[in-house]
Structure formats: C-alpha cells, structure tokens
C-alpha cells in the first residue's frame, strides 16, 4: 500500500507544483529559480539522516559530504535569493512614482 | 405675466435673448411671451417658429416694452429705452454695471428691477443661469477656429510622404471658462497647447484637458470666492511678462482671455513681444473690445503688424449666433424657472436668496446690489 500513498503524494505534489507558478515577471525569473533551488536543497535532511546513522563508515562519509554540499545549496541559496530580492525591492521602490 | 423680447439694436449683434424652444417652455409654465418681429432672424429663428412656439409677434417695439412685465435682452438697453419700460418691470440683460454708471442710474430712476447677467454668482447651484460662462465657453471655441483660419499653417502634426509638418504651438493666456474651451478646441485640432493663468488652481484643470501649464513663479496670487482672479501687483505683472516672453515667441497662435472681474483687462502681450513672433503667427485678443490684453490690438478688427495677424474682432459668440442664443436663452429660462411662483404664474424674487442678491442691481428705485453700491462710494 505504501507505494500507493507515495504515488498519490507524488502526483498531487507535481500538479500542485504546476499550478503554483503562473505568470512571473521577467525580473523575478532569477530569484524564483534561485529560491526554488534552495528548496531543492531539502535533500539536506536525507543527508543528515545518512550522516548521523550508524551504518558503514562509507555511508557516514557519503552522508557527511552530502550534508556539506546540501548545506551550501540551502544556506547559499536562501541568502543569495534574499540579496537579489532586496536589490529588486529597492529598484522597484525607486521606480514607483 | 408678459415676457417681452425686443430685437437687439446693435448691427453686429446676431443673438436673441429667447429662442422658440424656451418660449414653448415658458408658455407651458403659464407666461405670455411677446417677441418683437424679426428678433430672431439673424440667429436663425424665424417669426413663424416663435409663433409656433406660442409667442405673440409684435411689430411695435415701444408697445412691447411698455406692456411687458419682464423684458429679456442680450445687450444692455439703450438709455433712451429705459424710460419706456413698464412700471416695476424686471429687466434682464448684460449690463456691465461696473462701467455703465449712467445706465444704472437711469435704471434705478425708472424703478425697474434690473438684473445683470454678469453678476450671477459663480456657485454650483447657479451655474445653469450663468450666462458669462455659457458665452465665454463658445467664445473659446470661436477664437480657435478664427485663429486657425488665419494661420498659414495647419494645427496638427502630419507625417506625410512630402515631409513632416510639425504641430502648431498654441499658447493660451488665461484659462478661465473661455481659455479652457480654447485649450480643448486647439487640442482637438492636434495643436501643441500651452496655457498660463495667474490662479494656481488652474494648472490641474489645464492638464485635465491634456495641455501643458506654463509654470511661472509669481508668488502669492489670489482668487475671489467666485473663482475670479485678483489683480496682480506690478511686480508680479513684470514677472509674468518676463516668463511668457519665450513661449510667445515660440508660439504660432496666442490666444489671450485674461480678465479681472470688475476691472479693465490686464495688458499681457506687449508690442515688443509681438515683434518677436514669427511672421505668419496669429494673436487672438479676446478682450480687445474692453481694453485689450494685447498692445496694439484694434477693437473689432483684424490687423497685421510685422506679419503677425492680431484678431481683435470681439463679439465672438456672434460667430456661432444660433448656439449662443440657445445657451443664453436657456440661462434666462433657468433664471425665471428658479424664481417662478407657480400659483401666481409670475416671478417672485426672494431677496434673501444669494443669487438674487448677487444679480439684481436696482430694485424699487434703489441700487440694491452691495458690490455696485460700494463701487459708487
């Protein structure tokens, strides 16, 4: 049965993903890409489990490097996105009369 | 109650104070209307039309004047006809009460109730009777049409196979009712329109018609409670002249409509400025007949000075005499309607009323209007 649950969840998420993004102004393309890229760093939590569990050493090493790489993705991704949006925000405010 | 409409006497006056449509309405309200023969001909209304509307046509002017309880005219009455009025009659017309002291005096003497259409207060409520506005409005249109029929170029921009014709620049000084309509008309024809007025509130109104407002910093300028301009100080006047110079030189058409209520219109285009204009340019001086906004304009005439045409024709609304009559007549009818006593079928003026106290100049042998009274002191 689990596979059924998983399949439902997968399908629903995919549809939801399609519906969520509608019409994005050009200025937001990069930030949105960057922001969703940060979300894809969610793999971090998988990495944490791998790195923390007591399987073979190799698993731990793999896990630990995964944690490191994923952290870069997550932390860097959110920060860079925020910087971009900050910039954009300022520009917009100036642009408005 | 008889309402009498004598024929206008001035040869260049084509308007008539009451048009057949309004005759019909007044008759329906219970008035008797008597119109002098041929009174509406020049405005395009034949005696037959008046008859059809229920008016009596009278060939005897003096009888008409003597028997009417209310006399409606466009122009001020000739002094010799004041005496011919019926005792206690109401006389409605333009009067120019600030300048026509003698006429006012004889009206007072005759005991007539003289209403001056210039003096209708400028309130939202009284707007339907405001003949100054209705006529100024048409004058604004006419001035542009006359101006551009004298211009050796066209007003709109045209990008054609034979090159691009630049839009003409029209500069309108004084953006009251006439000025605004002139702006609208010139804009309609595709001109580049710039306007100036001493009252700062007007800037928004000018822009609301899509034209540009010329910014000149004059410091504090005032406006009466009726929305009329206050006269400038000499210093301010110089600033204004200075500020307009360049714009006038660059313009193809200049239309001046500046007025200060109750005073001689200010001179705002000097002979020097005229000289600076391109040959072929046109100036329309709305105020030419009452003193002139333009130095060198000749009342009633169109002249050329150094290749610049200066139109001082005056009498603007007579160019569109029919519409002018229709509007003036509607103003009068609205006035009568406002103070009509349905029972007695006659006009009952209420001197407490702001409109009445504003526009009635003489009544019962007295000058009752505060402004005019104070003027004479």
């Amino acid at each position: 049965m689990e596979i059924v649950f998983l399949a439902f969840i997968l399908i629903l998420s995919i549809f939801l993903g399609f519906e969520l993004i509608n019409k994005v102004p050009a200025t937001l393309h990069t930030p949105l890409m960057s922001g969703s890229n940060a979300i894809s760093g969610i793999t971090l939590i998988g990495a944490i489990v791998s790195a923390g569990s007591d399987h073979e050493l190799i698993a731990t090493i793999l896990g630990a490097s995964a944690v490191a790489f994923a952290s870069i993705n997550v932390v860097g991704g959110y920060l860079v996105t925020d910087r971009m949006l900050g910039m954009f925000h300022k520009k917009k405010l100036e642009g408005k009369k | 109650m008889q309402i009498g409409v004598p024929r206008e006497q001035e040869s260049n006056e084509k308007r008539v104070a009451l048009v057949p449509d309004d005759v019909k309405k007044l008759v329906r309200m219970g008035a008797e209307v008597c119109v002098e023969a041929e009174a509406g001909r020049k405005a395009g209304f034949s005696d037959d039309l008046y008859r059809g509307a229920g008016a009596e046509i009278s060939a005897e002017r003096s009888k008409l004047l003597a028997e009417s309880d209310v006399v409606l005219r466009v122009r001020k009455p000739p002094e010799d006809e004041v005496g011919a009025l019926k005792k206690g009659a109401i006389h409605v017309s333009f009067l120019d009460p600030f300048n026509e002291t003698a006429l006012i005096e004889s009206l007072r003497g005759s005991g007539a109730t003289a209403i001056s259409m210039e003096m209708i207060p400028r309130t939202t409520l009284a707007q339907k009777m405001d003949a100054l506005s209705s006529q100024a409005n048409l004058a604004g249109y006419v001035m542009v049409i006359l101006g551009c029929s004298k211009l050796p170029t066209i007003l709109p921009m045209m990008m054609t196979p034979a090159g691009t014709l630049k839009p003409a620049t029209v500069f309108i000084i004084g953006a009251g009712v006439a000025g605004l309509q002139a702006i609208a008309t010139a804009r309609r024809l595709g001109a580049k329109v710039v306007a100036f007025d001493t009252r700062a509130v007007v800037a928004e109104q000018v822009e609301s018609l899509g034209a540009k407002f010329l910014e000149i910093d004059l410091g504090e300028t005032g406006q009466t409670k009726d929305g009329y301009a206050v006269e400038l100080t000499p210093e301010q006047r110089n600033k204004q002249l200075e500020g307009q110079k360049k714009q006038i030189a660059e313009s193809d058409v200049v239309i001046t409509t500046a007025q200060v209520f109750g005073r001689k219109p200010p001179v705002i285009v000097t002979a020097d400025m005229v000289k600076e204009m391109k040959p072929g340019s046109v100036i329309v001086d709305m105020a030419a007949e009452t003193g002139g906004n333009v130095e060198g304009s000749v009342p009633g005439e169109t002249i050329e000075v150094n290749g610049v045409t200066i139109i001082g024709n005056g009498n603007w609304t007579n160019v569109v005499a029919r519409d002018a009559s229709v509007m003036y007549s509607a103003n009068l009818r609205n006035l009568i309607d406002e103070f009509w006593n349905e029972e007695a079928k006659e006009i009952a003026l209420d001197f407490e009323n702001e409109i009445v106290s504003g526009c009635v100049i003489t009544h019962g042998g007295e000058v009752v209007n505060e402004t005019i009274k104070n003027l004479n002191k």
Partner: protein
Amino acid sequence: MNAAILINLAYIASAILFILGLKMLSSPETARRGNVVSSVGMLIAVVVTLLNQGIVDFTWIAVGVIVGSLIGVFAARTVAMTAMPEMVAIFNGFGGLASLLVGWAALYGTDATTFLAVTIVLSVLIGGVTFTGSIIAWGKLSEKMNSRPMLFTGQQIFNSILMLAIVACGVMFAMDPTNLMYLYILIGLSFVFGVMFVIPIGGGDMPVVISLLNSYSGLAACAAGFAINNLLLIVAGSLVGASGIILTKIMCKAMNRSLTNVLFSGFGSPKTGTKQVEGTVKPIVAEDAYFILEAASSVLVVPGYGMAVAQAQHVVKELQELLEKNGCEVVYGVHPVAGRMPGHMNVLLAEADVSYDVLQEMDQVNPRIDNFDVAIVIGANDVVNPAAREDEGSPLYGMPIINVDKSRTVFVLKRSMASGFAGVENPLFFKDNTRMLFGDAKESISALVREFG
C-alpha cells in the same frame, strides 16, 4: 513511532511553508517574504530531522553543516551582483551532488530491494547530471569556459551510445543491487552525460538551462526521497521539479524560443553563412507575446493602415503605458506613407493622446533599429516590406521602409497573410525573428494588455 509521526507532522508544516513560499516568490510584492517563509520551512525540517532516532552521532552532521553553511554564507555574501546567476548554477550543482550522495548512501543500512535500487539509480543519475551540467553552466556563464556551443563530429552518436550505456548500467544494478561496480560506472556516466548535455548549448541560453537543471535537482531530491523513504523530500522535490519546469517554459517564452530549440539548436546549426531562404510562418499567441514584451526594455511600434481599420489606437496607447510602467522605452516609428491618407497615423495617435515626443520618423528609427528588443508592427505591411530593400524585382524596390526585420524580435499583428495596398508578398512574415500575432489588431492588443495583470 511517536517521534516519527511528530517529525512527519512537522514535515507537513514545512511542506506547507514551501508551497506558500513558492507561491509568494512568484509575485513581486511578496517575493522576499516568500523566500523567508520557505527558509523557515527548511529550518523546521532540519531541526526536527535531528530528532530522528536513527541518528546516533551528530559529529559528522555538525561538521558537514558548519562547513557547508560557512561556504554558503561566504559565497552568497561576496558574490558580485552580476555573478549571481552562475552562483545559483553552482549551488544547484551541489544540491544535485548531495542527492546523488544521499541516494548512494541509502544503499547501506537496509536490504536493497529492486524498488530501492531503482530509486537509487534515479537519484544518482539525475543528481549526477545536475551536478556536472551545473558546473558546465557555471563555467560558461562565468566565462571560465568558452561560452559558444561546443560541437564535435560524432557527437550525436556518442550521446546515443552514452544513453544506452546508462540505461544498461541502471538495469544491471537494479537487478543486482549488491554489485556496486555498476553503480560506480553509472555515477561516472551520469557525470559525463551532464557535461554532454550542456556543452552544445550557448552561453546566452544558460539561464534556461540552469532553470531546467534546477528542476532536475528537485527531481533528484524526490528520487532520493523515495530511496530513503522520506516524504518531505518527495513532496518538496516534486514541487520544485514541477514548478521548475513551468518556470523554464516561461523563461523560454520570454526569449521567444521553444525549449527544444534551446536544448538542441546547437546540434543542427553549422548552416550559418548560406543565403537567406524563405522560412516558415511562426504564429504566436498573446500569452507568449506577453512574456517577451514583459522582458523587453525597448519596443518600437510601427502602426499602419490596419491599426486604423481596427481602431486600435486607444489600446495601443494603453499598451504603451503598461510597457513604460514596466521600465520599457516605447517609440512609435511612423512611415510617411502609412495609412491611406497623409498623416493618417497622426490623426489616430493624436486621438489616443500619444505624445508627439514619442513619434519618430522613419529616418530617426532606422539607424537604431537593431537596438529594439521588439518591433510591434500593427496592421502595417507595405511600409515594413523588406522586399523594398532586397528584391530588385519588387514594385516597391527602392522605397525606404522601416527596417523592422533588423530588430531583435518582430511581432506582426494582422488578420491573415494577405498583402497590403501595393498587393506585394511580404518576406518579413517568413523571417526567423518574426512572429505573427493573427487576429484583429485591437483584439490582439487588448489581449496583450490584459496579460499584464
């Protein structure tokens, strides 16, 4: 079990935050807050994950997180504004790599069923492609590499073999998950494939590629989620995967390209240099045209008789204002013979209150025509017919025209392929950079206006 449920409920909360975050990110007013919302979701997920009872040792986790975060903070803080897109690329690559590693690590600790093996293959494969693909994208964008499309003979054959090999390895591994050999080969092949995927694409198209890779890295996370049986990975990963694809599509539209064109145009292109041949007519719909206009920074409007027939002048003015509000410069190029009487366009444009300042003559716009991102031809035909320049046999030959075909993209708004007053075919409609927006000009422009929501 209780803890597991609690953790998962927290995961639900972070999934909700991700969803909200994504939604907010796609609108200018809320974007910044959206990013914060989604990062809170991430924080919650990370924190509750640490409660996982499978975790016995936090050292490695701490090391990894600290090292990674420091690098991330440093990189994000110091990167120049202009270098942000490549920074995103490299982050994305790391994400893919992490998914690859997570998938790999999933092999240890449980018995490998076929299902598990398949998921591992997927996460490794997608993760690997994302990783090296992103690295190449980064290299091209930062100009550490030649940004031109790189092609070599036999490329297509090589790629086909590569794909076959990947499939074979995947199948072999899935059948016998204990044989790690295949896994290693697979990892290697996926790296190679990532490289091969991106090198034939030009630098200018990199943003689209990054967006696509970003979508892939979401899918990789999703696959990893299946591998380690983690719902949040599945949900968040597929959310990113799906929304990334939409975003990629939007970005393609804004460049007036199809995705296939972006990905594979490199292959078929060494045809440059041959003489211009008649192309095909490429229609476009208002929605796609919107994406291009929205991204444009200068637009030339060329009105013609059709604008008059459609009485489209008022909506044209409205479109002008929307574009200007969007930070775009709008200029009207008025050809002297446009319309059916001298000054026809002026009458209409004045009626719509288009300022004289933005009206330019043919001779003013032609010299700068190639700087316009988009030229919108509204019911004009003869006056933009390049045959007047190129085709000596044409009755129009010798007439100066507005050379809209030289601007980056041309939209031609007319109802059909019919010719204009002169009755001459118009090769403009067949040019590569021309898109035909068929329909009454007023309807078409109104539709565009309404797209600006």
